[in-house]
């Protein structure tokens, strides 16, 4: 039988012993602070343990503390603003740690109850940054920005991309990765649809005049 301490909710205290940074006590405290800030801004917050894919189905009850910790890949805080606007849009925030590369990933932006993710410009993400454990200062600075800016904005302002490439847009990328050039392609497509840009027409070569 396991001798290690269990928390008040009956779940194992994985911060005991020698946990990885991704789920040690300091990290849990930092995530808890973030959760409190989100709740203060009327976000519904959920937390999850992210298991290593191979260990998802392992019976965790019989494991030692070290074995239990080995099954953990990181922690996740998922939050979304209570309620939506009239079009079904809402703000959302995900903060996740990863023991695999000792990183913390923050994704914040908007989601939609009515439109699929791929319809949202940059998949709804306004902030998307990953920091390693030596960059916690940078992470905190970004979180402060999110806390001061995104979480305090009352109106949801989503940007959508058209479902299908505009007929004039011939180099539309098929994948929706988030690099600048792909996002620029998405901008072009949305701008073609709304008449903000047009394709430059090739100048016809004039026929040489005959004598």
């Amino acid at each position: 039988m396991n001798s290690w301490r269990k928390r008040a909710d009956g779940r194992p205290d994985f911060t005991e012993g020698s946990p990885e940074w991704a789920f040690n006590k300091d990290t849990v405290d930092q995530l808890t602070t973030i959760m409190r800030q989100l709740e203060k801004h009327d976000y519904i917050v959920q937390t999850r343990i992210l298991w290593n894919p191979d260990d998802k189905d392992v019976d965790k009850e019989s494991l030692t503390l070290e074995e239990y910790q080995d099954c953990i890949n990181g922690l996740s805080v998922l939050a979304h603003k209570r309620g939506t606007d009239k079009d079904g849009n809402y703000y959302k925030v995900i903060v996740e740690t990863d023991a695999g590369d000792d990183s913390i990933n923050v994704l914040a932006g908007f989601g939609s109850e009515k439109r699929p993710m791929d319809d949202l410009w940059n998949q709804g993400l306004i902030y998307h940054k990953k920091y390693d454990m030596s960059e916690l200062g940078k992470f905190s600075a970004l979180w402060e920005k999110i806390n001061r800016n995104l979480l305090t904005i009352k109106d949801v302002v989503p940007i959508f991309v058209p479902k299908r490439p505009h007929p004039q847009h011939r180099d539309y990328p098929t994948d929706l990765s988030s690099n600048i050039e792909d996002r620029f392609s998405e901008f072009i497509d949305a701008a073609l649809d709304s008449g903000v840009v047009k394709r430059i027409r090739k100048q016809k070569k004039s026929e040489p005049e005959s004598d």
Partner: protein
Amino acid sequence: MSNTEIEKTLMKEVKEMTEQGYRPSTQAVDFVKVLGPERAVNGLTHDFITIKQHNNDGDKRFDVIPTETLKNEVMDGLTNKLKTRGYSLTVSGEKRILSYFSSPTAFNMKAIIGLQTLLPNGMNEWDEQHE
């Protein structure tokens, strides 16, 4: 003048303005909320944004507005980048984007920042770190 000196001068100007009774307008508050204080300071030091004072019968307010520098940088950058991809702004499209600058609401400022993010220099100058 270094960025730090420019910041100090700006802070002094803002302090003097506040002492004279000027208060941020709703537009200025929303604008800085969208940008965040660090970007607001960087925007001022790089002449991307400026402060415009109003005194309507003693109601002293100030707006934060984008400058010609920012307008030129975004419009030129966007035009050139579109050109390299084989596109150009339509007349109505150009008017629409210019209207973001002439009516700098929080929404329009988000659009400007969103566009600048996609341009070659991106948000580097807005995001400079200071000692």
